[in-house]
């Protein structure tokens, strides 16, 4: 893989893509910021209080000598930059899939390569036990790493019709 040939810029919140690997078979499971898409408030049928807008992410290292790891690029519309999906739980030890470098010791495990069918980035943070998320009503919540995966996915889809609210 090519190295960074430029100064990179990284951010620490990404937008909600929904349950990425399931969107192909069920478009209602997409998130409000899915690929080539932007939701209107009326499209968020599950409710703005029950749908993620943004989730926390970790900035992958991007020194000039590093191989390219796109994770944390808010400026780049290519996949696996800032588009977070609910295929994997928050702070998952299972690897992200995309153009990235495997760094499990930094809470940034990765399977490099693939295409749109594989791409998935988990929400990740540097604090123990969970991640901060912002819902579409602009409220901010803390989610535990061990949130039930089906609840997590229901909160990431905008119109899946699931009966799910934030864990109390």
């Amino acid at each position, binding site marked *: 893989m090519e190295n960074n040939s430029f100064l990179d810029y990284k951010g620490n919140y990404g937008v909600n893509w929904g349950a990425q690997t*399931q969107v192909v078979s069920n478009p209602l499971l997409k998130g409000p910021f899915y690929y080539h898409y932007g939701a209107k408030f009326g499209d968020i049928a599950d409710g703005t209080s029950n749908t993620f807008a943004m989730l926390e992410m970790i900035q992958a290292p991007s020194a000039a000598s590093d191989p390219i790891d796109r994770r944390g690029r808010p400026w780049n519309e290519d996949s696996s930059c800032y588009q977070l999906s609910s295929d994997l739980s928050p702070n998952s030890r299972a690897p992200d899939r995309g153009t990235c470098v495997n760094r499990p010791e930094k809470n940034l495990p990765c399977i490099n390569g693939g295409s749109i069918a594989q791409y998935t980035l988990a929400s990740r943070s540097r604090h123990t036990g969970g991640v901060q998320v912002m819902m579409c009503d602009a409220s901010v919540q803390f989610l535990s790493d061990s949130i039930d995966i089906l609840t997590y996915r229901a909160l990431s889809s905008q119109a899946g019709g699931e009966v799910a609210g934030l864990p109390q």
Partner: protein
Amino acid sequence: MSRFYRDRFSWISTVALIGVGFIAITGCSPGDNRQALKGTVTWQDSPLPKGVITLYPKGDGSTVGCEVIDGKFSIAESNGATPGKYRVEILAFRPTGKSEFDIDQNKKVSIEEQFLPKQFNSSSTLEAEVVAGKPNSFDFDLKPGK
């Protein structure tokens, strides 16, 4: 240093020393009890060429996973699962024959598709129970309609 602070200081030091001693003995942070995992995945009686297996905890714990290559997977203890029950999801990928240019990788990448039925991933009924101190080996024999 007043007497109050001195007493308090020694109390904190004692607790800190016990903590350091505990970490030194267990070699890791308290509660970290990860187990290595391995196993096989077959699809229609053949080893699954290329996929991903993910285990989601049914209680406390973290999600773990890895690639499946030629029907085999293995997760080292350092990235392993803590004992308990897990929901298992398996995705598998195959080329669509199409490709797209990726500017960062500076090459054409094959566009792939996920082809396993949803009863093995989004609506999975697959489970695994991770047990401490035993070989955690899991074999998943996937067949359509099963």
